[in-house]
């Protein structure tokens, strides 16, 4: 597939980079990335990936756009309130870049459907806002041998890590099981500064792009934490011993996906 003149111009700032080039841009155009959650993290991740020319972007979210989302979920506009988030996200991405094919999943991800949804994708971005979904995505990606970016944001803080099969710890290596309902606040209960999704979601897009290009070092084996009030990033080394993990270890005890109970205050989910 040769580039059109328009593509050469559109992606010129990529193509000029020695780490990307025409070859790398073709990799991006042939890549498939799934974003689960079209919210604070998923919105900026989706927009940067669409702008970058990721050829196929899947987006999964069961929710509709709410006025209280617009403080941070920049892929949705005021006119979109009440519309399914996946439809609003698709419209924005397609308007940004006609090269991108957007596939929407207007549903909750569950143990029943997740393996089928992730199977066609090269990289998955966890942009969800609750622990049951985060553990489900981790376990499904471990079982299906899919790389993914995990992230969480709350108040003025954010963190992310990248899982690549066989190359480092998974989310469950670090956190064994979801905390009990309401034991740890979510951002709906605690609040979150709008630009936090922009910082951390953009870093998730960066990890996806680097993975597809095969350049640089990923956050495998590291947890990157960001404290906006102290304006401090820290790259915390994670233990490399994954042997005892319940899902990615040598003798996994979790061999089937689990639908943990959703915290009530999370309401409608993803």
């Amino acid at each position, binding site marked *: 597939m040769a580039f059109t003149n328009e593509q050469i111009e559109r992606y010129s700032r990529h193509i000029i980079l020695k780490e990307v080039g025409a070859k790398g841009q073709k990799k991006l155009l042939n890549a498939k990335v799934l974003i689960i*959650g079209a*919210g*604070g*993290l*998923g919105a900026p991740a989706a927009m940067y990936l669409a702008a970058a020319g990721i050829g196929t972007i899947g987006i999964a979210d069961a*929710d509709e756009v709410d006025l209280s*989302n617009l403080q941070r*979920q920049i892929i949705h506009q005021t006119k979109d309130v009440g519309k399914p988030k996946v439809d609003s996200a698709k419209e924005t991405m397609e308007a940004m870049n006609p090269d991108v094919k957007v596939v929407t999943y207007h549903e909750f991800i569950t143990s029943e459907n997740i393996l089928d949804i992730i199977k066609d994708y090269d990289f998955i971005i*966890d*942009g*969800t*806002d*609750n*622990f049951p979904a*985060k553990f489900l995505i981790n376990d499904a990606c471990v079982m299906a041998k899919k790389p993914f970016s995990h*992230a*969480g*944001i*709350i108040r003025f*803080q*954010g*963190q992310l890590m990248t899982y690549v099969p066989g190359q480092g710890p998974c989310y469950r*290596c*670090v*956190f064994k099981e979801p*905390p009990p309902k309401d*034991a*740890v*606040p*979510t*951002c*709906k209960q*605690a609040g*979150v500064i709008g630009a936090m*999704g922009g910082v951390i979601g953009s870093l998730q897009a960066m990890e996806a792009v680097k993975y597809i290009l095969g350049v640089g070092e990923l956050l495998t084996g590291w*947890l990157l934490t960001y404290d906006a009030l102290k304006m401090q990033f*820290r790259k*915390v*080394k*994670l*233990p*490399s*011993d994954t042997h005892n993990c319940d899902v990615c270890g040598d003798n996994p005890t979790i061999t089937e996906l689990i639908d943990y109970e959703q915290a009530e205050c999370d309401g409608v989910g*993803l």
Partner: protein
Amino acid sequence: MKIKVAGVKKEVQDGLTVSQLIIDENVETPEYVTVTVNDEFLENDQFDSTVLNEGDNIEFLYFMGGGQ
């Protein structure tokens, strides 16, 4: 003795346990924090019995559930 907590060097008393350090550091939701000592995971039931040594490097990893 000197230890490093979340990247910051600190002077602490000899014989300090991980449980006491968690209290001294005002760790939020201590029941749900993951602790690593010198890049190794420490099981929650070992917090009381683990005595820190000079030069140990301790990290607290916190659940962060938001995203939407």
